[in-house]
C-alpha cells in the first residue's frame, strides 16, 4: 500500500529538513570503562542529593512540628533529635562523592602519566564530557598538566634540539 500524497509530501519535507540540519553534536564513543565510571559518578551524586533532600524534609517537618504541633496531626512523641548531624551527614556524603570522583580522575592521570594510552583516552573523554561538572574541570586541568609534562619530555619547535639531521647512513 502506498502512502497518501500529503504523507509523502511531509516525509519528503522532513527528509529535506533533516538533511539540512547541523550534524549531531557531541563526542564519539568512549570506552566501556569510561561509560561505567560515569554511571557510578552519577549514582553517587544522586545518592548524596537524595540524602540532602531527605534531610531538608526532616528539618522542615521538625520545624513545622515545633511551630504548630496541632496543625501537623495527632500528638506523638517526637524524639529529641538534632537535625544538624543529619545535615552534616548529607554534606559529608556529598563531599565523599566529590572526593571519590576526584580520586578516580587523579588515578587516571597517574596511569596516563605512566604511559597508559587507555587512561589518557578516558581522561580526554572525561575532560570533554560536560555532564560531570567538577570532574570534567579537574580532568581538563590534569590533561593540561600531562601535555605540559610531555612537552617538557619531548620539546617541539626545535627548542633545545640540535637541528642537524641524523646521518642516513654511510656514504658510498
Amino acid at each position: 500500500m502506498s502512502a497518501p500524497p500529503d504523507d509523502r509530501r511531509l516525509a519528503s519535507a522532513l527528509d529535506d529538513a533533516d538533511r539540512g540540519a547541523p550534524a549531531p553534536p557531541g563526542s564519539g564513543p568512549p570506552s566501556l570503562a569510561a561509560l561505567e565510571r560515569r554511571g557510578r559518578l552519577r549514582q553517587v551524586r544522586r545518592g548524596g542529593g537524595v540524602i540532602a533532600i531527605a534531610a531538608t524534609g526532616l528539618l522542615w517537618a521538625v520545624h513545622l512540628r515545633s511551630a504548630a504541633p496541632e496543625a501537623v496531626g495527632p500528638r506523638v512523641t517526637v524524639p529529641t533529635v538534632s537535625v544538624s548531624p543529619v545535615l552534616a551527614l548529607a554534606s559529608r556524603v556529598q563531599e565523599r562523592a566529590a572526593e571519590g570522583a576526584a580520586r578516580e580522575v587523579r588515578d587516571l592521570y597517574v596511569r596516563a602519566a605512566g604511559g597508559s594510552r587507555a587512561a589518557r583516552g578516558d581522561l580526554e573523554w572525561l575532560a570533554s564530557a560536560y555532564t560531570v561538572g567538577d570532574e570534567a574541570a579537574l580532568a581538563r586541568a590534569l590533561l593540561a598538566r600531562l601535555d605540559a609534562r610531555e612537552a617538557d619530555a619531548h620539546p617541539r619547535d626545535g627548542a633545545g634540539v640540535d637541528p642537524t639531521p641524523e646521518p642516513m647512513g654511510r656514504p658510498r
Partner: protein
Amino acid sequence: MIRPFILHAASGGSSRAEVRAEERQLFERRMGAEWARIARLAHRLSGWSLGPADADDIVQDVFLAAWQRRADHRGDASWSTWVHAIAVRTVGRAMRSRERRRRWFGRLLPGPELEAAGAADGPAPGDGAGAALRLAMGRLRHADREVLVLHYLEGAGTDEVAERLELTPEALRARLSRARRRLREVMGPEAAHDPARPAEDLP
C-alpha cells in the same frame, strides 16, 4: 542458542575472566558501530535542538542502560533494534523532563527557538523551508514529534511504531493525525507550502 552477551564459559572452555573480557570487547565494538546512528536518532527526536552536553548525556545514558540490561536482550530482536528501542525511551524521558522544566521555570530558560537554533553552542539553523520546519518540530510536544520522527524520518511502519511506543495501532494513527495537525498549527497560516497540510487544503 547462545545469547548475544551472556557467553558461557563452558562453551569455549575459556575462563570467566576471558569470557568477561570478550563480552566487553563485543559490547564496545557494537557500541562503536551504533554510536553515530543513535546520536542522529536522539538529535532528530529532540527536534535537532541538542547541544553537545545534552547529546553526550543522552547517548551515553542509552549505552549505559544497554550495558546494564544486556541480559534482557533476547535473540529474537537484532541488537541494533533493541538499542534503538532503548534510545527512544531514554530520549523520551529526557525530553519530557526538559518539557517539565520549561513548564516550571519557563521564563528562566531559553525558548524553543533558541534551543532549536542551537544558539548556545551549535551552528545556526540557516534559512528557508527546512529551517522553518526544524523550528516548528522543535516547538512540538515530544509525544507529537516522536511519532513524526519515527514514522516519517526513521521510516518505521505504523505497526512498528505502535509496538515501539506500546500503543495500539489505532491510538498511534490518532496520535499521528494529531501531530500533523499540531505541526500545521505551529507552522502557522503564513506557511504557504506547509508540508503537513493535506493536499486538498492547498489553494
